[in-house]
């Protein structure tokens, strides 16, 4: 027996299809939409459709965009010749928010993961290689996450890029800011020691 009227049940059912939203959360969201003003539902519906219709991949860096190329690829003030390779749009956003990197990006849209049936041909690796000559890239910064798959992907790319005459760098891995050595695991400590740098006086 249905607890709620059919249209409300339908909305809950649709919301439970979203990642991280279970039955309880979906019910809470659906009831919130129902209790709120009609404008919220209209805006939500409009935005959902707009996202599907207008957002696509930037043909250069493969970030999400509503214009081709995306704002970062269009920006003439950004440094050419330095390319930061990340796993997904969220990673690019995190680096952008830090304001530390002023070069160009390339989004792989995943990492090598045989268990999930994701191989090199499923990532934007061919497109990355295509950019190297076209954009006269001098340095590629590999900024995949320090997970097993992220590191394998970085190593795989490093091997491919090695004979291209480029400078290939990897973001540093190790002790986080504000960390405490006593609580750091051996793997991270090993990375930290391997990536130690000389301190200039």
């Amino acid at each position: 027996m249905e607890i709620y009227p059919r249209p409300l049940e339908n909305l809950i059912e649709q919301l439970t299809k979203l990642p991280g939203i279970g039955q309880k959360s979906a019910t809470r969201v659906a009831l919130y939409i129902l209790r709120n003003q009609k404008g919220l539902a209209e805006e939500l519906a409009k935005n959902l459709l707009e996202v599907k219709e207008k957002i696509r991949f930037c043909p250069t860096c493969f970030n999400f965009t509503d214009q081709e190329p995306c704002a970062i690829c269009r920006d003439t003030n950004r440094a050419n010749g330095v390319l930061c390779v990340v796993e997904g749009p969220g990673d690019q956003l995190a680096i952008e928010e830090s304001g530390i990197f002023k070069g160009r990006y390339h989004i792989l849209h995943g990492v090598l993961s045989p268990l999930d049936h994701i191989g090199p041909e499923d990532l934007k690796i061919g497109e990355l290689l295509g950019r190297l000559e076209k954009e006269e890239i001098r340095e590629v910064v590999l900024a995949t996450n320090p997970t097993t798959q992220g590191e394998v992907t970085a190593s795989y790319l490093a091997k491919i890029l090695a004979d291209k005459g480029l400078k290939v760098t990897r973001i540093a891995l190790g002790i986080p800011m504000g960390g405490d050595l006593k609580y750091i695991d051996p793997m991270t400590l090993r990375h930290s020691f391997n990536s130690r740098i000389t301190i200039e006086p």
Partner: protein
Amino acid sequence: MEAHLSPSIIMRVHEFGESDLLIHFFTSDKGRLKGVAKGARRSRKRFVNCLDLFSLSNLEYELKPKGELHFIHSGKLVDAYPGLRHDFSLLSKASYMIELTEILFPLGVPDSRMFEVLEAALSQLAQGIKADLTLIAFELMAMSLGGYGINLEKCCVCGRDYLSEGIAAFKVEKGGIACLKCQHISAVSPQLSPPTVKALKTMQSPSPDVFRLLDWAEDLMEEIKPVLKRHRDYHLGKHLRTADYLE
């Protein structure tokens, strides 16, 4: 329900909700399990590096009141097998080992020997030495522990003991070897020489020590590979998706 502490191998990691992880792990005493590590993507204390794929960690977990899911309370990394993190070929082999283990051992079926074999195989693989041999030996041991060992003791047709003296034929539907009186050598029934049968016997004995002793000639491996593939495909009746990345 009491919390439990087990050495565990991390088999799969999925993002779950805002900051949780859904972990598939193989324990030494309770077999393959699934559990949620609440807040694991943010925690720097309870789950420091211990939930990364293929890592060996001591996990503290507890069965949820309903269903087969566990709560993973904390964990400590024992070995991350760093060698697996720098080579796609090794990652693919490790992935294959995990997928095969998942097929052979359903959730909650304990097998301490399988845990030891998987741990030893990942450790050996991470060293990057004799990786192909390690994979073959692992597969034979896992199949044997999972109940799909190749019968190498007797002719699977007439029942005569195999005395390790002559060429034998592999008979896939029987899952064993046959004498040449009962089965001709053909593309469907490839031959197995006495040294190959001996090597198969050694590799089928589920002992982690075997990985350290692997030292078989290439021609032996060439005889074993097609036999093993036919045996696996026929008896498991399933194509392993990770096999696509092994070549």
